[in-house]
């Protein structure tokens, strides 16, 4: 067994949330530059220029890329040979989130009760934590500060197996069409297929964090990604929804085995400020 102290986990969570909120990954910056070259709409071009400029300012000054610094989502891959000592696991993750948001000038956007009081917890906690136990003696942390302008445009469909890849692509394109300008296009579309209704959405969310330019390793799923992206960009919604070719930057599909009777398809929409960071302990 390898021992890891909770203080190490807390520090890493804090570091990753600060990093994610200030710095857009190079692969995404590159994709935005490519989109700027390809964009035919003049308004679209100026929106993309503003986004690129914004991301450079945020990174160099270490200030929030977007004022919606998101609900803190943490994916944990916990090696089964790890023994965590020194405190409660979920509590230290939340402590790391709290310190990042309070000390890093990030907005606290969590309310305690979703329906009635809606009182701000002032710490941006609790975080949403997903833990998978995996072989090995390391902990991999992936953090996603998830903005809600785009989260609100997410959708789930329990499709029939007979709907096939065509039904899935149509559902993806239709979801993006309906969202229009609201989720801050150009978006990144995370898609989870299979599993159960809930599990499909979890893998859709995790798919957002995939490196830009990478496709699903299964050729058939990769071609669905390409087809969906092509059709989305034919919608004309464009940057900020003001018309243009760049409505989405990528479609990332992941899939899981599912029940003989079903084909769940979950879509998790992410704005162009697709913030995430990974670290290994």
């Amino acid at each position, binding site marked *: 067994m390898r021992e890891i102290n909770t203080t190490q986990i807390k520090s890493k969570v804090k570091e990753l949330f600060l990093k994610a909120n200030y710095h857009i990954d190079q692969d995404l910056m590159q994709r935005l530059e490519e989109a700027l070259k390809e964009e*035919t*709409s*003049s*308004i*679209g071009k*100026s*929106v993309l220029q*503003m*986004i690129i*400029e*914004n*991301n450079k*300012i*945020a990174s160099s*000054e*270490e*200030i*929030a*890329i*977007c*004022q*919606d*610094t998101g609900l803190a989502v943490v994916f944990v891959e916990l090696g089964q040979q790890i023994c965590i000592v020194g405190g409660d696991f979920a509590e230290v993750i939340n402590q790391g989130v709290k310190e990042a948001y309070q000390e890093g*000038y*990030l*907005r*606290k*956007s969590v309310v305690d009760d979703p329906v009635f009081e*809606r009182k*701000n917890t*002032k710490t941006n906690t609790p975080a949403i934590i997903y833990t998978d136990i995996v072989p090995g003696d390391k902990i991999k942390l992936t953090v996603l500060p998830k903005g809600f*302008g785009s989260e*609100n445009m997410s959708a789930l469909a329990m499709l029939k197996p007979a709907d096939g890849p065509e039904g899935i692509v149509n559902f993806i394109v239709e979801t993006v069409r309906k969202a*229009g*300008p*609201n989720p*801050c296009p150009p978006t990144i579309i995370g898609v989870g297929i299979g599993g159960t209704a809930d599990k499909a959405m979890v893998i859709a969310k995790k798919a957002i964090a995939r490196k830009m330019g990478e496709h699903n390793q299964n050729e058939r799923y990769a071609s669905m990604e390409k087809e969906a992206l092509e059709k989305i960009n*034919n*919608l*004309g*919604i*464009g940057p*900020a*929804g*003001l*018309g*243009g*070719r760049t409505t989405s930057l990528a479609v990332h599909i992941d899939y899981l085995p599912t029940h003989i009777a079903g084909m769940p398809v979950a879509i998790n929409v992410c*704005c*162009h*400020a697709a913030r995430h960071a990974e670290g290994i302990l």
Partner: protein
Amino acid sequence: MTQVKKITTPLDDNKVKQLKAGDSVLVTGYIYTGRDAAHKRLIELIEQGKELPIDIQGQVIYYVGPAPAKPGYPCGSAGPTTSYRMDPYAPSLLDRGLKGMIGKGSRSQEVIESMKKNKAVYLGAVGGAAALIARSIKKSEVVAYDDLGAEAIHRYYVEDFPAIVIIDCEGNNLYETEPPKYKK
């Protein structure tokens, strides 16, 4: 794209009528912030026949909940939030003299009709360009609902705040007219 128009707040019918959907604008002057929770409170006051904590006559409300300001900055990152959540509240405020709204995303038909009736304009700021936009915010003070934190009503002094006229006072709507041009 048309030329950039400079506008100063407060607005009046005359200024609003000169703004056409598709115009790029740079806004200078005082604007107020407000989003979900603050709008809910304003409307409750209106329903109770009470006075509002701010005089909205001729004013512009920016739908934003800013990030906290880093020391040395007047304001934290401050990009627009999605406007449709304020749609149920906007017509009442427009009826009371609100002249402009800044946000992102579509508006309901009720809001558009109210804008036409009251001669008001809806400006779009680029969602997610929050650090860039914040550079145009020179002063920030909380003027109401301090307890709401980021959702409190702030009064900003802005200089050359970059926006685009999405819906003008005749109801012309850029979200309706532009995307079809690029549809394949």
